[in-house]
């Protein structure tokens, strides 16, 4: 009987140690998280949103020509309502298109697709630019 109680005590202290070990791991994770956030907060030179745009290949789908565009926000702040303008110059005339992204968060990318009636031929024929954004 004495032995069995001793065994129970041992297993209880094992359980306790396990709980403390789990707690310690969690403590380290939370401290690293807070440290990371404070590091970000004190980092200087946060840039306002600015964008890089890459155009994908042109694919003929149905009667239109679809071109995927990828917008990347290179700044350190989120931009909302990002408007991307695309103008296709062809002999038959100009085609202007607009894409709106609800949000392009900092250092993140968003995808969209433009649809033209005429074959752009190459991506170079399409002029792409971000014309506006608002702060979220």
């Amino acid at each position, binding site marked *: 009987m004495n032995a069995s109680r001793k065994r129970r005590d041992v297993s209880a202290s094992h*359980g306790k140690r*396990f*709980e*403390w070990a*789990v*707690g*310690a*791991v*969690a*403590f380290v*994770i*939370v401290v690293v*998280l*807070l440290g*990371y*956030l*404070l*590091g*970000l*907060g004190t980092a200087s030179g946060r840039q306002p949103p600015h964008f890089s745009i890459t155009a994908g290949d042109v694919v003929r789908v149905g009667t239109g020509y679809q071109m995927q565009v990828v917008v990347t926000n290179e700044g350190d702040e*989120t931009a*909302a309502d990002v408007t991307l303008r695309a103008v296709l110059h062809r002999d038959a005339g100009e085609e202007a298109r607009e894409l709106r992204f609800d*949000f392009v*968060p*900092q*250092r*993140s*990318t*968003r*995808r969209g697709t433009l649809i033209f009636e005429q074959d752009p031929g190459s991506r170079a024929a399409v002029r792409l630019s971000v014309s506006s954004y608002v702060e*979220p």
Partner: protein
Amino acid sequence: MLMTMEMWWLGFTIDPLRLVLLVIFCLPLLVLLSRRVGFEATRGWWEDVVDALFALGISMVTSTVCLVAFGAIGPGMSAREIAGKIAIQVVPASIGALLARSQLGSDGPDEGKRQESYGGEMFLMAVGALFLGFNVAPTEEMIVISHRMTPWHAAALVVLSLMVMHGFIFAVGFRGGTELTPQTPWWSAFIRFTLPGYVIAMAMSLYVLWTFGRLDDAAFEQVIATTIVLGFPSSAGAAAARLIL
């Protein structure tokens, strides 16, 4: 949930593989949950599996009926869209179905005598976090809030979450169950229960956000911020889980 637009949209925008993974992940969770709260005092694992499947079936039928009544599913929609809309509702609905007993049902004679093990405690926290996280994760507000926050706001929110959680755990812990007593120093409970609970809640938040595709194409900083925002309600859910279950 059934009346949330974002949930309907997720039904057809979500990656089907992630949806399947979610339902698969949900099954063992339901079995374990049934073991603890369940419809009836079960004798064997087999009965828990049956109960879990029953909860899944019930929630599927309920979700379908409600979605049809709301006009969220109807003719003219693809099978994939309809299946997605139902499947995404099934997870919170089936957890809810199992919880209904502990919330609405009468207390059994063995109620209150149950001694939770440490692992069981952590499991209940995970279910609570998943349940509450699931309820708010689809909303657009989660994303908008995380976009507006600076790292300072995020750090403050982490501290606030921990405080709310600890308050819950300390208040609820005394209701019996664990060996938490008024004599336990606050830092002991904080390290052994609150911190692991918070990390579990964060992990659940991360998983739910990933499932919903909220983290796709997002920068690391953004992933962290969104997880912290969702971690606030889900950590409260984790801490309150013992109160409910």
